[in-house]
């Protein structure tokens, strides 16, 4: 295991252990000790879930630049992008699973499906996407499994197993694999657009919450998915790959150029939403925006969202980042963290307005409190645990799988 993979593994393990008490409480007491309630039915776990789903969609769509659109420039990070998409997807699914009141019934979405629910649709699409991702990763890595399986030791026997007996490396077989990967990737692009646009649609069709009820919402989801996925990939290539800033300088700077464009489009959409809503006189439209900009959680919008996710990285990428891989990496890191704020501000302001004026004062009991939400210790615990699982999956990939360019040639 490389030194950096070890560091990531240790970070993942620490997160997992710190969060473990929260997980235990979640499993033994259900949702008893969460900070949200009926007035705020979706909270931190949902925000983090859409964050990771966005990372996955973004990373996958960037991998399609290599495998569908044949951009040689990013060829060496194609596998990394695919595996990042897988790790993010699994983390996201973990979050939304823990959020269910009855985790043991999740499969009902397959056994008693509702075709009118966007939520059901996206779960089916996630499932298809997961299968497609696994298949694409296998086809991309198969040559490395075959070659790596020739030696001795644990890794070699694992690779031998992972070939599933398909050891043909003739030019014809390789050409067939490339073709399959291109087909899978080509199916994957509309699939990724559908499942992430669909995630936005879950919110956008909610007529009860004027803040979400706009046609721009699913599109914003997609653009910010691309931006956040690109930012995460930039960070990983620059700072996690051994000598990423040197060896992968071209990829980092190339990703940076892509990132600045995506951030700009996302920024435009944010501004459009904010200005249109603020201009009007409809409280259900402007209160969620006003709360974001000037409410007690103003820093989530200004510091995380505008500062770290959008404007800061855009400035860095436009000036020092144009030629410097270090600066591009820093911009990517800032945006990766900042987008958590953007995701938070997608979910929580939706509940800033009482459904009926005065309902918040009509009744007060545990889990029935309007206009106030802070994540509980249980929520933080489960969050750290699940992120830890995601980080460990990534570390495991770095340790065991042929994710890196050098290993392609080996």
């Amino acid at each position, binding site marked *: 295991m490389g030194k950096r993979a070890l560091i990531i593994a240790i970070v993942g393990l620490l997160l997992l252990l710190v969060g473990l008490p929260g997980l235990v409480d979640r499993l033994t007491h259900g*949702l008893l000790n969460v900070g949200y309630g009926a007035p705020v039915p979706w909270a931190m776990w949902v925000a983090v879930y859409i964050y990771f789903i966005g990372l996955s969609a973004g990373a996958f769509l960037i991998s399609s630049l290599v495998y569908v659109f044949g951009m040689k420039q990013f060829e060496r990070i194609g596998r990394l992008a695919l595996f990042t998409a897988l790790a993010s997807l699994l983390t996201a699914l973990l979050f939304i699973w823990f959020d269910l009141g009855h985790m043991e019934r999740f499969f009902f979405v397959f056994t008693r499906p509702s075709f009118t629910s966007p939520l059901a649709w996206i779960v089916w699409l996630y499932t298809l996407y997961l299968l497609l991702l696994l298949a694409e990763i296998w086809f991309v890595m198969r040559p490395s499994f075959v070659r790596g399986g020739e030696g001795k030791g644990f890794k070699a026997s694992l690779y031998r197993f992972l070939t599933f007996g398909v050891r043909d490396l003739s030019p014809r077989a390789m050409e067939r694999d490339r073709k399959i990967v291109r087909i899978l990737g080509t199916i994957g692009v509309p699939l990724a657009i559908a499942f992430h646009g669909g995630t936005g649609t879950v919110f956008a069709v909610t007529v009860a919450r004027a803040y979400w009820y706009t046609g721009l919402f699913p599109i914003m989801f997609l653009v910010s998915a691309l931006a956040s996925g690109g930012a995460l990939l930039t960070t990983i290539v620059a700072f996690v790959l051994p000598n990423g800033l040197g060896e992968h300088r071209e990829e980092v700077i190339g990703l940076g150029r892509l990132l600045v464009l995506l951030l700009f489009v996302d920024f435009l959409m944010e501004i459009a939403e904010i200005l249109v809503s603020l201009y009007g006189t409809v409280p259900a439209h402007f209160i969620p925006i006003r709360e974001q900009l000037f409410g007690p959680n103003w820093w989530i919008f200004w510091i995380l969202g505008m500062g770290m996710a959008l404007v800061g990285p855009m400035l860095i990428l436009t000036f020092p980042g144009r030629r410097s891989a270090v600066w591009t990496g820093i911009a990517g890191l800032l945006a990766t963290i900042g987008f958590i704020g953007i995701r938070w501000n997608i979910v929580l302001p939706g509940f800033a307005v009482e459904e009926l004026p005065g309902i918040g004062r009509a009744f007060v009991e545990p889990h029935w409190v309007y206009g106030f939400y802070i994540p509980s210790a249980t929520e933080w615990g489960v969050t750290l645990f699940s992120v830890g699982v995601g980080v460990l999956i990534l570390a495991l990939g770095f340790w065991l799988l042929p994710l890196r360019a050098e290993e392609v040639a080996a």
Partner: protein
Amino acid sequence: MSVETMVKSVLLRMYEDLDRALKKPVHERHWGMVIDTRKCVGCNSCTVACKAENKLPPGVVYNVVIDEEFGTYPNVARRFISRPCLHCQNPPCVRVCPVNATYKRPDGIVVIDYDDCIGCRYCISACPYGARSFDFGNFYTVGQTPEVMPWDVMPSFEYGEEQRRDPRNPWRSPIGNTRKCHFCLHRLEKGMLPACVTTCIGQARIFGDLNDPESLVAQLAASPRAIRLKEELGTDPSVYYLL
């Protein structure tokens, strides 16, 4: 006619309407409610009756009474909007459910099947009236006071089944489910009015079959004083308010 007989006659009339409706096939009924805001004094007894009837735990509330104040001193007034589930005929909560656990019955009542609900809370997000709550597994006395009160662990009889909440098992329904007003369906099926209707001290709540032109509820719903909440959303609620 004394006030007592007037009050009695409203109740009696509602029971006659109810009997007539129950004789019809279920799909020919449309249960609905009219709430007269001028008769409501904001005493919250509907909320209390509902809590007691359905043994609702902390955080689960099917009915609320919203207290609004108007004007500046000395010209002030209050208005009370008591809000059960409005049992929309085009319910936004139903179509977002990923597993068909919540649905509209042929008689117009929007119900939840506790054994099917996965607890995703999409319906709560989708309800424009804040009418749905979630059972997080809280108890009033279990773990809160030295002695566990018997009423705290007694079963309710929602949907005609014994619904027993288990303090030691958060995986057992109805804990972990969305819960909502069902117009006391278990009482209706036994020929009784919803608990909130029988308890209302001002007879502000009128219940019955909106499909029956002879019923009191249908006649009051046709009044020019009658409005429905957020009608512009196209939800078509079965609860009317007389202003």
